[in-house]
């Protein structure tokens, strides 16, 4: 079993290509800001960015000009308001960012169909709404049992899915606890997978608790070790959401100039996540550490 451990720079350079459909998933939890920043730093172009909730990280990526299109279900700075950079290119008479829009379950269903190699996924959403008018890929399908019609969404198979996680082995076997979002589905649906982790652990740690593994190394192309890589989002058990950052982003993103300055200061002028963490400062980081809440131990039993 060969190691898949790589630097963020190499992982993004090798695995994210101009024009790709990229999904950085994680529902409020475990959002790989570190990977998003590296994509900006490397000046990738023409990306289609998929994500249920294009929040601050996609606002930054859109501002930096890496994206040509969003595939999403909820567009905003959660708990705060709008996303200034995205609003600037989606409002008014001639929007320049293409939007392909679903609901949360629609997006989850799209990844699930992609992961399961299904040509569509059925769901009960969208009836009597304008969403199918706005997005012709949302279609009806008749039940073969004569009991009516439901809606369908097509599979979504990202070229690259990037997820942040608490821990993985060098082989890429990845474990997560807390909110699971749809990372598993998005990873299985993808052609290439980058896993970014707080901690690299021995294979034995993974194998001691196989029920916690959500992504097997089998589908992982690179493991990047990047502590604090999800900041300002959070990692269950490791650090809290940095709410101040989300609040601060609101006025920054309302101004194209302020956004540009922020990107220069916090992305382009830094050579990677370690420099970002250092710049944040130990005091701010310390304030985000939670107290302990241990899970307890279960016994799998040794059967010889």
């Amino acid at each position: 079993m060969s190691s898949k451990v790589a630097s963020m720079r190499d992982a993004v350079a090798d695995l994210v290509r101009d024009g790709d459909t990229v999904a950085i998933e994680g529902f409020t939890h475990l959002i790989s800001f570190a990977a998003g920043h590296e994509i900006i730093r490397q000046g990738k172009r023409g990306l289609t960015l998929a994500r249920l909730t294009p929040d601050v990280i996609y606002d930054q990526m859109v501002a930096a000009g890496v994206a040509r299109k969003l595939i999403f279900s909820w567009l905003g700075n959660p708990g705060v308001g709008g996303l200034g950079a995205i609003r600037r290119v989606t409002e008014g008479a001639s929007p320049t960012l293409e939007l392909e829009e679903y609901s949360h379950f629609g997006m989850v269903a799209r990844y699930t169909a992609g992961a399961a190699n299904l040509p569509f996924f059925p769901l009960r959403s969208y009836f009597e709404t304008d969403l199918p008018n706005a997005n012709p890929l949302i279609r009806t399908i008749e039940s073969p049992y004569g009991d009516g019609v439901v809606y369908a969404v097509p599979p979504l198979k990202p070229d690259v899915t990037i997820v942040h996680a608490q821990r993985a082995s060098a082989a890429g076997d990845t474990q997560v606890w807390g909110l699971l979002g749809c990372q598993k589905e998005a990873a299985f649906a993808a052609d290439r997978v980058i896993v970014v982790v707080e901690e690299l652990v021995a294979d034995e740690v993974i194998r001691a608790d196989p029920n916690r593994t959500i992504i097997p190394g089998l589908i992982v192309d690179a493991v990047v070790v990047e502590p604090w890589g999800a900041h300002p989002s959070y990692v269950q058990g490791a650090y809290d959401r940095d709410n101040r950052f989300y609040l601060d982003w609101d006025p920054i993103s309302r101004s194209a100039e302020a956004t540009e300055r922020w990107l220069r200061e916090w992305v382009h002028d830094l050579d990677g996540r370690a420099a970002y963490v250092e710049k944040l400062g130990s005091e701010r980081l310390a304030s985000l550490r939670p107290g302990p809440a241990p899970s307890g131990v279960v016994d799998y039993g040794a059967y010889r």
Partner: protein
Amino acid sequence: MMIVAAARELAGQRICFVGVGLPNIAVNLAKRTVAPDMELVYEAGVFGARPARLPLSIGDPTIVTGATAVTSMFELFAFYLQGGLIDVGFLGAAQIDRFGNINTTVIGHYATPTTRLPGSGGACEIAINARQVFVIMRQSARSFVERIDFRTSPGNLGGAANAARIREEQGWLGRGPSVVVTDLGIWHFDDEGEMRLDSLHPGATVERVRETIGWEPKIATALAATPPPTDEELRLIRVELDPGGSYTS
């Protein structure tokens, strides 16, 4: 007052799908007052949350630690919501019409909007699958409109008879919107599926209600006065739920 009124409407409810912001405070207030057995479900994938602080976002880590169950979003939407286990879902709205149809997608034309709003998120799914839907929003002539610009979440469609027939035919589990709580009063839906002002909050007037609505509203003949917040309700909000006053100042 909006929060207190919404919380009171939750009396006796069992399983509540919680949105962020105002619904979140209302639900947590209800759990501490009129609905102690209510279980909180967060769309992020949490059942039986027991937040130790007011969650900052819909996916705050405090809703996970000490919860009963954490599930994938697929399971949450497929089994809990579409499967019919949710008694009450909360929706906010940028625009609402007299039948409780909701827009959270765009103001203006879809392709060239004046204002790009967040979109559905889970809202259209809540509107279709939750047994009943509570709406919580401030009133204004821009938000209570004769015709919404985009229907993100279906309410009573073109009226109660129409809505009931379509919900029946298409096997929806939800019965649609049951209450709209605003900063001015409490609206329920009458037999024609139209919003009717049933209670006016302290300090609000029927004139103010008419000024902040884009159609000629129905007003209950026996219009009630919403009882003012009790000391205990205020204490819970100010001390426990929103000490910073982020949502309630």
